[in-house]
């Protein structure tokens, strides 16, 4: 048994033993659980993938004369202005003004909110255009100017939902190609797409939210941020394997961090043909090895994690809840799965390569004493289920 304080003391003295969620599997096999739990202080987990529920608050500071922005665009991408005068929220999936979307399907969606966020972190000069109705205290009615992230007072990423604990494997049962946030899916189950770092993914290494909670310090694209709430659609009450590993989406995290500290290679705008734009983010979360149970769960392997196979041509959009099969991440990683006797080629949307990079970067930071762990101030709910949206004909 260790405490957060003991682990942080070891980190600060540069003596902490830190392994990635990838390395810990063999380590525990070699050393045994009991000995490894004494030796290891921290296991680092990570993921890199599209996370649509991402965005940022920006504060521009005041021009002279002042404006209270009522509509605003950054690089022609609409931002939300229904807050204070020069605060805006820029969302990852917002399209650029004039984008034809799916007018001539499949749309290309080359640039949108996610790309603006990427450009902002990369230090590029961006255009702000804003309008206002004008007031006595904020008389300016229009502004067009150019800025970089350094000119902003604050650029705070606030992502309501990142780090899905587990995720669907998407296939297409129809007779035409479909375009989804899981990529292009060819007809007749020709290909499948999945999106998880599997055995490296944060919440799959802490399936019961024993250490990851509100207040946990996280590595968000290189910045040190934290979990500020349960993520939207967090639903820990779900089907689980005998070992407690969720067999569907389950938990999520709401994350925040200072964008001025972020590294551009881990903040990337993405375009999904026929679907839209989003943001791919890199997240790393350290798991303190407080006891043997926590260590044991970080030893989860791709072969033990099952993902539901869902038809995105009918079952997903129509919300039937039907799951065709479950496959393990070990099977997915071979590049081919078998669904009802049919071989299906598999591609990923989540980058294990980048996740591994992040897990190692974070491990190095912890070893150097540059990243201390924060004890959660509140746990994530364990028994919450996902509610549907009812369609009611009238109020009450």
């Amino acid at each position, binding site marked *: 048994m260790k405490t957060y304080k003991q682990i942080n003391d070891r980190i600060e003295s540069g003596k902490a033993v830190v392994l990635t969620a990838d390395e810990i599997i063999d380590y525990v096999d070699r050393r045994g659980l009991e000995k490894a739990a004494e030796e290891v202080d921290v296991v680092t987990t990570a993921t890199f993938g599209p996370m649509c529920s991402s965005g940022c608050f920006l504060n521009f500071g005041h021009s002279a004369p002042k404006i209270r922005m009522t509509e605003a665009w950054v690089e022609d991408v609409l931002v939300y202005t229904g807050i204070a005068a020069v605060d805006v929220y820029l969302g990852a999936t917002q399209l650029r003004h004039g984008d034809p979307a799916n007018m001539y399907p499949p749309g290309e969606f080359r640039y949108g909110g996610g790309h603006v966020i990427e450009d902002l972190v990369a230090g590029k000069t961006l255009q702000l255009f804003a309008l206002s109705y004008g007031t006595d205290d904020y008389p300016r009615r229009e502004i067009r100017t150019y800025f970089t992230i350094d000119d902003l007072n604050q650029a705070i990423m606030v992502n309501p939902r990142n780090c899905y604990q587990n995720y669907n494997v998407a296939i297409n049962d129809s007779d035409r190609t479909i375009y989804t946030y899981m990529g292009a899916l060819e007809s007749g189950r020709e290909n499948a797409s999945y999106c998880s770092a599997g055995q490296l993914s944060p919440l799959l290494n802490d399936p019961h939210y024993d250490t990851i909670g509100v207040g946990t310090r996280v590595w968000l694209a290189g910045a040190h941020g934290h979990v500020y709430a349960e993520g939207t659609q967090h639903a820990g009450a779900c089907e689980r394997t005998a070992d407690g590993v969720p067999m569907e989406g389950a938990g999520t995290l709401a994350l925040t961090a200072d964008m001025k500290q972020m590294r551009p290679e881990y903040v990337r705008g993405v375009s999904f043909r026929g679907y839209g734009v989003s943001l791919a983010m890199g997240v790393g979360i350290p798991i303190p090895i407080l006891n043997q149970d926590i260590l044991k769960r970080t030893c989860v392997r791709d072969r033990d994690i099952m993902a539901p196979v869902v038809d995105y041509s009918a079952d997903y959009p129509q919300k039937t809840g039907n799951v065709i099969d479950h496959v393990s991440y070990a099977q997915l990683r071979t590049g081919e799965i078998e669904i009802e006797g049919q071989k299906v080629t598999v591609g990923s949307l989540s980058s294990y*390569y980048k996740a591994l990079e992040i897990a190692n970067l974070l491990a190095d930071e912890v070893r150097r004493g540059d990243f201390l762990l924060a004890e959660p101030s509140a746990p994530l709910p364990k028994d919450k289920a996902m509610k549907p949206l009812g369609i009611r004909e009238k109020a009450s």
Partner: protein
Amino acid sequence: MSDTVTEKLMLFFPKCECEKPIIYHLVRDHDLIVNVYRAKVTPEEEGYLVLDVTGTEENIRQGMDFIRTFNVTVNSTGKGVTRDDNRCAHCGQCVSHCPTGALRIGNEATREVVYNEADCIECLACIRVCPFGACASAF
């Protein structure tokens, strides 16, 4: 007969050379087997052509010398489809859409996606499916 080799080439034809049957002469005069992957004539009447040529090294050399007597640019490393290593996030989405395995997981441990240009048949599937815009066509 000497051993034959196959080389992947990208040719750029400026406006004045587009109407000449240059490839025909590669076959007839230089005994080369030609496999065209992709060809395009732009509205400016410039032409692009990506192809394999198979023949003896000597015949390929002579064929290329012949092509260069025109104003045609020969790029012997292909480059019809390129991947920007800085934009590639190695997610692996392209891998399931690439019909020849030119884009594939090169290392099982790190799951790095590698691109072998020589295996690319210029179908452009990767350009359509890459969320990061890492793949691009020269024309």
